[in-house]
């Protein structure tokens, strides 16, 4: 994605460029005395040495005084970001203060202002960056400030562009800590430092995930319920989404379906363990779909899956036994062999791309359900919360998970889902802003 806006099209473009140019100009004129170390091109390369952050903290100015003030109130300086750099997607949460006083507005450094405007006035950034407006949390109180929490995502392979933007917008001059989690926080730490002079606060992704889930659930309990489940999951006609009150959540099995899958058992706010994981996750669904159908995005793959018929691809119990395999209580409709029909050439030739996409989705989803159920049994936990971006706009998988858990556990297990699916790691990272340790 092109977050710097130069390549964006449509109406916002001119405005964008204007903003961009001011952003570029203003710091230069203002920071002659303050942030010269990072503002001048010569110093840019010097900063790569690694001593820059220390010096930055020592330089002071009026805005910086304000920021210090913010710190004194045990509140991190703006901007407040949390970032989760996963294998496929970067998830970014941004807290937009809505209670900015006139004085603050005036003192706000231009770079900060431009970031705020840029993020909040758009819903798409470049070709691939997206703000999930429907997830935005308004009227949120965080560390004594009121504002909105924004949820933004873009593909991990666009991260260099993002870092470039950070550099162009002189993000480093804001002396903020950039809290980042996910594998990319480790993998790209060096890039953040050398390309944009940004120091990351690296955080464990599972710590962040758990914190994020618990936090979001606590702040949104008043409004539209964060947590929901499917009532009557085994009856397609009656199956419907219902709010669920996650008041007393422990113990909880937390299943995070990103590129891969992690399964955590959460016993309390600070006590959780990773039970296991599987490499058959969202990345596998998309990866296989790309290879099998030639599609290239998750949305495309999902759209095809919605149209397809997996029973042409999979071999069902009834294909083998003519009906139920009663000896073992296996219903005829159960999948006996995923892609099992594809060993036969005629059948390979007769299936559509949509069928293949559907079968892939069903295979991956069922497998996650199956492993989850076994973990729940082994850990003796009855409530399962599924999160992660694989479930984004993926009602098919959610209903299937709800169904599978209910059916195979004979109603013992409940599948729960959270509206902010994939953003909990990023939220958890944001929350670490006050814990600079």
């Amino acid at each position, binding site marked *: 994605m092109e977050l710097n806006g130069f390549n964006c099209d449509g109406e916002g473009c001119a405005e964008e460029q204007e903003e961009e140019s001011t952003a570029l100009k203003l710091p230069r004129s203002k920071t002659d005395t303050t942030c010269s170390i990072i503002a001048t091109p010569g110093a840019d390369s010097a900063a790569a040495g690694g001593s820059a952050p220390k010096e930055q903290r020592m330089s002071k100015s009026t805005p910086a005084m304000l920021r210090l003030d913010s710190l004194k109130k045990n509140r991190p300086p703006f901007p407040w970001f949390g970032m989760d750099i*996963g*294998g*496929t997607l970067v998830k970014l949460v941004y807290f937009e203060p809505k209670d900015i006083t006139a004085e603050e507005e005036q003192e706000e450094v231009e770079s900060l202002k431009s970031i705020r405007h840029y993020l909040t006035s758009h819903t798409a950034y470049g070709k691939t960056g997206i703000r999930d407006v429907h997830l935005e949390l308004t009227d949120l109180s965080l560390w004594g400030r009121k504002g909105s929490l924004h949820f933004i995502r873009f*593909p*991990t*392979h666009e991260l260099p562009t993002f870092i470039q933007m950070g550099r162009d917008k002189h993000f480093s001059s804001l002396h903020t800590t950039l809290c980042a989690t*996910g*594998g*990319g926080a*480790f*993998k*790209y730490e060096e890039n953040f430092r050398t390309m944009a002079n940004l120091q990351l606060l690296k955080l464990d992704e*599972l710590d962040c995930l758990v914190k994020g889930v618990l936090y979001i659930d606590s702040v949104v309990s008043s409004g539209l319920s964060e947590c929901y489940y499917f009532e009557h999951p085994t009856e397609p006609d009656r199956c419907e989404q219902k709010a669920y009150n996650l008041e007393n959540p422990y113990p909880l099995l937390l299943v995070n379906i*990103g*590129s*891969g899958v992690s399964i955590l058992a959460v016993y309390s706010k600070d006590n959780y363990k*990773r039970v*296991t994981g*599987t*490499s*058959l*996750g969202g*990345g*596998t669904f*998309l*990866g*296989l*779909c*790309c*290879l*099998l159908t030639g599609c290239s995005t998750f949305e495309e793959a999902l759209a095809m899956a919605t149209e397809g018929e997996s029973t042409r*691809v*999979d*071999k069902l119990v009834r294909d*083998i036994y003519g009906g139920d395999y009663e*000896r*073992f209580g*296996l219903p005829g409709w*159960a*999948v*006996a*062999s*995923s*892609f*099992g*029909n*594809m*060993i036969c*050439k005629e059948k*390979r030739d007769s299936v559509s791309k949509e069928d*293949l996409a559907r079968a892939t989705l069903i*295979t991956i989803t*069922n*497998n996650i359900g*199956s*492993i989850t159920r*076994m*973990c729940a*049994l*082994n850990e003796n936990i009855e409530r399962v919360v599924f999160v992660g971006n694989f479930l984004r706009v993926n009602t098919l998988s959610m209903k299937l998970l709800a169904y599978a858990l209910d059916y195979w556990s004979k109603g013992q297990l409940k599948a729960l889902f959270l509206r902010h699916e994939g953003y909990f790691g990023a939220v958890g990272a944001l929350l670490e802003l006050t814990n600079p340790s």
Partner: protein
Amino acid sequence: MGCVAVRKNNRSKMALSGGADRGSHSMDKSITLPPDEIFRNLENAKRFAIDIGGSLTKLAYYSTVQHKVAKVRSFDHSAKVSLQETDGDPLYEISVQEEITARLHFIKFENAYIETCLDFIKDHLVNTETKVIKATGGGAHKFKDLIEKKLKLKVDKEDEMTCLIKGCNFVLKNIPHEAFVYAKHADSEFRFQNTHPDIFPYLLINIGSGVSIVKVESEDKFERIGGSSIGGGTFWGLGALLTKTKRFDELLQLASKGQHTNVDMLVKDIYGGAYGSLGLTGDLIASSFGKSATTDKEFSKEDMAKSLLHMISNDIGQLACLYAKLHNLTRVYFGGFFIRGHPVTMHTITYSINFFTKGEVQALFLRHEGYLGAIGAFLKGAEEDNPNQYSWGENYAGSSGLMSVSPELNPVQRARSGTFDMLEMDRLERQLVNLPLLQDPTSYIPDTVDLTEDALSRDYWLFCFEDALDGVVKRAVASQKDQPKAVERAEKFRQKYCHKLQTLRHQPFAYGSLTVRSLLDTREHCLNEFNFPDPYSKIKQKENDMALKYYLKVVKSVEELSWEQRQFTLVKGLLAGNVFDWGAKAVSDVLESDPDFGFEQAKQQLQERPWLVDAYNQWIERMKGPPHKCALFFVDNSGIDIILGVFPFIRELLIRGTEVVLASNSSPALNDVTNSELQILTERIAAMDPVIQAALKEDRLALVQNGSSSPCLDLSRLDKVLATVVRERGTDLVIIEGMGRAIHTNYYAMFSCESLKLAVIKNSWLAERLGGKIFSVVFKYEVPPKS
């Protein structure tokens, strides 16, 4: 000696490749399958069962095999006890009789040959009362009409899973070294497991087109506790879509050449390295096919196949572990066409299990995994014969061995052995159980050296057995001078055994762990196969005869000695007697060339004390103490060994007040004394020696058979009667004599009572390995640690 490569199956292979061409029916007519090579003993075959899978058919039937056995019969000596020393009057007569034993035949072949094979069976099936054929497997339905039409047998379908479990129980109970652990990079890829006295409970993961996970708790109690739709069919189906490769085998081939890291997203692709805090290394797969989701490039067929293989294997392994944990099971067997002897999948499954259980659970595979369904179906049909009440033994002569048709292994070998794989099992006359005196039956390993893992020893012993083959052939012919076609049969024996040795050179794991014992047993099986049941019968007879003449002399000379001297002389006699061993080439050469070589000469050959292993002083100290309650003595050779070595020794024990149980072989092996020979010998000795006579009469001396026909000794497979006798008599001393029983096997066996292992090392190579010279003495006396 000339060990010529024998291409036995060439004929059948050529014939069958013609049959595979279904269009040409004229070809079918010309097919002549050698019945003695594949579908053997069809003349009296009954109880057919067939398991038709996706690509392979497994046929099972029961037959009775008529073969010759050597019998000894005592002449009536009651009237001529006083004539015992009459020269030239043989002790007993030897006769060869026909005996009928039950045999199970299992044959595996490609589905393409099914019609040809049915035709062949029809033509050779005479006077059978069989009316039905039990059938299982996915293809049973498809071929039902063909089978009914060809064989005129009614097809009776049996549940696949039930058959599988029945078959699995059967092989686990009856075939030692059935299960193995696969370790790709180890010196020996196959590490065979001991047969656990109790095979239950276990988990069977059957990876067919899907996966079934079955918990087996007893012979009749099993439950499908779970499964997965991601199985062999997924690998095959998805693989075919991704790589445009149609055959399962080819897909595996592709996978073995691929690099999954090009397709999978690894932890290091996300983290740049390891995810340290969770202990996830950088090379772990974070997302299968993850790279194909984010990179827009072409992926090679090999890489995709490899990635798919890992994905499926890991997934199955993970589920297996979750189920094993939930049900608290540690024995997990894998089977199904996805596994079936493919090193590639055995490796990935093993890797997955190791990863997910951190080594707590081992993935186990089965040598006869492909036969389980057929065996089970057969057992279902043979319930009235109650095969499960007997013990069965794998016949090495009639079985192909592991991987005989594996495409990955040695393609040359494959072409030679054709596409037919066989398993034959003989019904053993006796039910076999553990020796109750083993300290820990679960960890007992009979064999001292596993030649599968020790390449140097393997080479030596294979050479040794090859080298001795000429002599064995000669001996076999000599034993049946007046019998028809003895030379021809002996030559066939040579070819067969030679072929086995060659197979074992390439696939040491073919019949489980390769050991000196298995080499000896294979030879015995091959000799029996060609009706040489007891090549040494006459030599044994002659030597027994001669030794008996010296018995009283030896006993008298010993009696004159002081207690200390007597004990030493008795032990030395026991050791000298053990020199007379036709199984050891060094000795048989001497015996062959010097007929006067006798007991005294043998004593002189013995190593002087201190012996190689010398616990004599401890033994003497023990002998000064209270007598043992009962001694169990596993005897070795006929002639001087048993008569002049063992008898004087146990005589002393009997005088001390120790009961003695002499355990000897049930059937012949080399010049080892058999139970029936020992019966006669004991009678004769009793007639001369009042001590022995009284002991027999008072039942303080008992003769039992060990249930074996091997020159070695597997204490986990002994006659049930022996076990009972041992238990009833409160046996507190085990004595094992001879190289085969005390060195090649049981050298490290631990007992719950005192034990004495003694042998003379009659092989210079082995002596050297043990740090001594030829005719070194091992005298090992062990007392179990006090609990």
